[in-house]
């Protein structure tokens, strides 16, 4: 299939086309020897063929995948970005630039995580792809490298990645909602320190954002959050202190000119939705027993 795809990929017999075809063939050969799966390569080649991606660009995409594979990164973020760029009709050089930046982000995150583990006496740690992905992608969600490094420096000993990922996403979410950056960082660090970022408390960021949207100052919200973290208080307590009701959470923050939708069901504050970031956008429920209408009351 791979050979078929590459044969079909670049029609024409002129020397230029042949040299280009050679580029792709060489890139595929490298990718295969590095361990990139033929399924992934087939998928990429088919995508290129269907969307008439130039062979030079395709060779560049494959080289990025090869590099990601060589450095032990998950390939999905890279293939997803290529698919997204092609689907959005983005010029190939720009896709290549974005891929290069992503590769750098993953390198930075992986090396910083490794340094953190080494500081705690653990050499050659196994970094699950899922958490490497979430932490790396937080750099595209408004978190600076310095902020991510600072968060990792405040990791527990030994470092545990799930709370770190949730802390990074919480901080990014707060910053995106115009929360004071320094206070957002303080919330993330203190939450980490007190091991507050657990799956049961995934609505933390949401409560804080809703409180801000209701006009409560950043300082008041931060003070309430930090005290709750230190006392290991409940989310319901934090919400109640900030005047956030279950209805507020159900409707969720609405930005821009999109009106809020009336809700039919109102789960209790902190109800689990299966969404690690508080069921922010879409309604979420568990398979087999679908969520209540609106999936967490979002409809």
């Amino acid at each position, binding site marked *: *299939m791979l050979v078929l795809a590459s044969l079909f990929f670049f029609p024409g017999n002129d020397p230029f086309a042949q040299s280009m075809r050679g580029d792709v063939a060489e890139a595929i050969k490298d990718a295969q020897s590095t361990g990139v799966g033929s*399924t*992934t390569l*087939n*998928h990429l080649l*088919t*995508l290129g063929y269907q969307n008439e991606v130039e062979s030079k660009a395709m060779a560049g995409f494959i080289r990025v995948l090869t590099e990601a594979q060589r450095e032990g990164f998950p390939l*999905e973020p890279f293939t*997803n*970005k290529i*698919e*997204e*760029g092609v*689907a*959005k009709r983005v010029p190939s050089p720009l896709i290549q*630039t*974005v891929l290069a930046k*992503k590769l750098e982000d993953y390198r930075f995150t992986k090396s910083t995580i490794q340094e953190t583990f080494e500081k705690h006496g653990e050499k050659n740690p196994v970094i699950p792809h*899922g*958490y490497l*992905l*979430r932490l790396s*992608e937080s750099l*595209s*969600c*408004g978190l600076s490298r310095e902020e991510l490094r600072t968060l990792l420096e405040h990791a527990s000993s030994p470092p545990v990645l*799930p709370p770190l990922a949730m802390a990074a*996403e919480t901080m*990014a*979410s707060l910053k*995106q909602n115009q929360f004071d950056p320094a206070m957002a960082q303080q919330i993330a660090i203190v939450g980490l320190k007190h091991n507050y970022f657990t*799956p049961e408390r995934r609505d933390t*960021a949401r409560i804080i954002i809703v409180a801000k949207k209701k006009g409560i100052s950043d300082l008041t919200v931060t003070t309430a959050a930090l005290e709750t973290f230190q006392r290991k208080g409940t989310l319901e307590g934090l919400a109640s202190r900030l005047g956030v009701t279950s209805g507020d959470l159900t409707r*969720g*923050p*609405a*930005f*821009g000119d*999109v*009106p809020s*939708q009336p809700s039919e069901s109102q789960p209790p504050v902190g109800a689990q939705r*299966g*969404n*690690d*970031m508080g*069921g*922010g*956008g*879409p*309604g*979420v*429920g*568990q*398979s087999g027993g*679908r*969520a209540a209408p*609106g*999936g967490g009351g*979002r*409809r």
Partner: protein
Amino acid sequence: MDGPLQIEDDQMREIASWIGKLPDIEPPSNLVPSVMRALQPKKLSLWRCFYRWANTPKSVNFTPLRAAPVVMILIVVFILSGLLISSQKVFRVGPDPGQHRVSVIFNLSLREARTVSVIGTFNSWKGQGYEMKRERGLNVWSLELSLPEGRYEYGFLVDGQRVIPDPRALIYQDDGFGNRNSVLILRDKNGEKV
């Protein structure tokens, strides 16, 4: 009636006398071999032989008992090739289909839209098959999907032309191309698998 015949007889006789006056000439020495060579059957190429063989009608006689082994072999080959094809994961990149799935409802309130689709990393950013339905009498578009646990970026494709982020998402991500994607993180209710 005798006039024309008489003329033809005279002409024939005149021709015969001309032939009789012609000198005797010996035939060329290689006449016989060259004629024999021309008469010899030509040697056909292998391909030509095969073509003629394949193009010649044949009749096959068989009894059902004699055909049974051949039929059995064909059935086994058919089953094996089917198993081989089904065991290959063709064009599947993404979450393991065996993963736990989570039901998600996407909602968007939008006036003045003819079509809205959900696009994202879960469908290779293609809207086909992911069209949202407008609720009767409202400007609310919705679509329920069952997605494996994981982290997704997504947006709404409006009228097949512009992509807008989910205004209700809790977190967004710069797509690198000048726009924002909404981020959705799904995982098992009690698990930590992402």
